[in-house]
């Protein structure tokens, strides 16, 4: 009996150890994403699928695989923040999925790291005509990201609050905006004219709610050769204008830790009269407040400015991993998403604007405000100078901290901009 137990015990012990080793070996195995029958499987990591109506993105992918039976697409869908972290760690370990959804704010760092590949050479190899692309994000003259769908950030105005405050027209200049915001804030209760989310966890407020004022008046935060230019008169005017809104007490309280979703919630609840926000939130506001009467408009420009207005945007960009063994197939998939027909479909279901300049989103079943926004978009130009900058989130955060100091009286506008300029200069070489 003892002998049997001992033998069995040894056997189980050996099998356990062997299984463990085999498991580890299996974990490290990689088939290179190619099946024995020649079918190539491309991994595509993105956050888009989670933000689209259920099944719609799968349908677009299925169309591609029907046209290209030798290419399979494995969708890796996760929320935006998770996708960012996963791609960052994947880039570090050279295990990025073949095709990656990109935010313009990540491109520079991924490209410098050698994690994403030079799309210009892939376009040349595939003899691809890039004249249809509305834009390409380039580093040192080479394309690393193609914006697939663009989401613009116009001014949202609660018409009821505006009318109650005695303001007939949606503001088109900074002066009119300050006047409208002051009147809305004076109407009583907890209502304020505007919201400024300066949360430093996700400091997008600097891009969407602060620099947008600069871009709307044709200004730039960079010099012609791409260096920081935060001490320029245009940037100073912008920050002073934001400070004047704060001094006039028209900004909803809690700005220093306010997040973008708080801003949308306050607008939906009628606690703020105006905000700068993504078009993607139109449906959300309609769902939460079906009776609310609101409009979208171009961002107010500096008084007297008559030029074209920049309108901030964010993109669902796409890139290809440098470590992918199937770059040609991956580019075939990218060019499919950028084709006139597919891109129009994708931008329609995403409620965004197409990255293919010949594609026309179908506004037939959309909220009429999307068409209004599209007209604003066509009249101006998409502006987002953070796209392609290194460590762009960090640049936003350091600017946000200086702006917080200004708004709390801790420093002057000049000193804050000088400090931000110094910080940015150490990052943007």
């Amino acid at each position, binding site marked *: 009996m*003892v*002998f049997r137990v*001992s033998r069995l*015990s*040894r056997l*189980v*012990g*050996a*099998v*356990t*150890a062997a299984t*463990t080793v085999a498991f*580890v070996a299996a974990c490290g195995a990689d088939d290179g994403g190619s099946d024995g029958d020649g079918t190539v499987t491309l991994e595509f990591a993105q956050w888009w699928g989670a933000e689209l109506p259920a099944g719609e993105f799968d349908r677009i992918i299925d169309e591609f695989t029907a046209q290209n039976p030798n290419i399979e697409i494995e969708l890796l869908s996760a929320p935006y923040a998770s996708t*960012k*972290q996963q791609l*960052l760690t994947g880039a*570090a370990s050279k295990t990025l999925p073949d095709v990656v959804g990109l935010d313009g704010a990540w491109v520079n*760092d991924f490209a*410098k*790291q*050698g994690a994403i590949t030079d799309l210009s050479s892939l376009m040349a190899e595939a003899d691809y005509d890039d004249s249809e692309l509305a834009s390409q994000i380039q580093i040192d003259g080479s394309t690393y990201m193609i914006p697939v769908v663009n989401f613009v950030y116009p001014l949202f105005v609660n018409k009821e609050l505006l009318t109650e405050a005695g303001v007939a027209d949606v503001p088109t200049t900074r002066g009119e905006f300050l006047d409208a915001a002051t009147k809305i804030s004076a109407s009583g209760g*907890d209502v304020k004219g505007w919201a400024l989310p*300066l*949360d*430093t*966890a*996700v400091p997008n407020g600097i891009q969407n709610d602060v620099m947008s004022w600069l871009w709307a008046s044709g200004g730039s935060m960079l010099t012609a050769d791409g260096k920081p230019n935060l001490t320029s008169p245009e940037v100073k005017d912008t920050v002073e204008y934001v400070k004047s809104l704060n001094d006039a007490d028209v900004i*909803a*309280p*809690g*700005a*220093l*830790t*306010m997040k973008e979703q*708080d801003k949308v919630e306050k607008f939906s609840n009628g*606690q703020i009269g105006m905000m700068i926000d993504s078009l993607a939130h139109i449906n959300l506001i309609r769902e939460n407040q079906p009776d609310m009467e609101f409009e979208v408009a171009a961002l107010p420009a500096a008084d007297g400015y008559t030029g074209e207005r920049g309108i901030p945007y964010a993109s669902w960009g796409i890139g290809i991993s440098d470590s992918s063994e199937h770059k040609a197939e991956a580019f075939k998939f990218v060019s499919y998403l950028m084709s006139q027909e597919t891109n129009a479909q994708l931008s329609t279901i995403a409620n965004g604007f197409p990255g293919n300049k010949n594609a026309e989103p179908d506004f037939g079943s959309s909220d009429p405000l999307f068409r209004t926004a599209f007209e604003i978009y066509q009249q101006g130009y998409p502006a987002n100078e953070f796209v392609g900058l290194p*460590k762009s*989130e*960090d640049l936003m*955060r350091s600017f946000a*901290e200086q702006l*917080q*100091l200004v708004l*709390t009286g*801790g420093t002057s506008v000049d000193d804050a901009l000088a400090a931000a300029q110094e910080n940015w200069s150490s990052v943007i070489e």
Partner: protein
Amino acid sequence: MTLTAPRASTRAAPAAPGRPRSTLARRLVPYGYLSPTVLLIVVLMVVPIVMVVGYSFRDNVIVQENSVFAGFANYTRVLTDPDFLAALRNTAVFISVSTVAHLVLGLTFAMMLNTQLLSGVTKAIFRIVYILPWLFTIAVIAVIWRLLFDPSGVVNYVLQTVGLVQQGVNWFGDPATALWAVTFVNIWSGYPFFMISLLAGLQGIPADLYEAAAVDGTNWWQRFRHVTLPQLRPVIVSMAVLDLIWTSHQFALIWMTTGGGPLNSTEMLSTFTYKQAFSEYEFATASAAAVIVLLLTMVLAFFYVRSQRER
């Protein structure tokens, strides 16, 4: 035992030439069983820690393909960074106040649930109410308290109604109140674990001790000081040290309420490290900060292990 040993030896005797190998195999059997656990520990704990320590001594790793050895430069950079020192200070305040409050609240509520003065039904209701904060995930807690602490939220409404404040306080958005606000929320979310552990400890104190103390003519306070506290001491020490370690790693609550702001007033070691890595892409300094946190935590772990040995 006396039966099996001779049988084993008699069976082993004929196979004398193979005996050493058989003994070796027998000795390796336990390691065979342990191999999955050992492997998991190595893969999930030892390797990452060694890698992070290695990263902390190199030039900016991960984002640079050919990083070089940098000695203690990253540690010097981190330890002289005003933001790190502010984070260290904030973390010290956050964890010490949280732990003391967890202990006081947990003990108070545990004693309330252990008293003979309340009926079983009443205690069951209190037990459910007190345990509620522990049932929420950190994400839900952050959302709830962001709403409650909103300048136009419920807390300010109540305070204004009873005349304690004239205008809404910007709890999370004011540098003067933000650290105390997140500490309060952490206390709210964490005291039930203390309460449950201490309640278990209280229920384990023999009633004889209280009866003997009562016979000696002691009052409530004397019984609390000389019977309850000494009996709970091992639980209190263990819980306090563990809580200091857990709270020092608190990240989600800070990130989802204040993000370390405003103006770094709630920056903790965890948020500082995260920003270094995932915002500034400075993985080497993030690793150095993580190693410093590890060393600080190991000091606490040393006291925890020592307290456990004493038991």
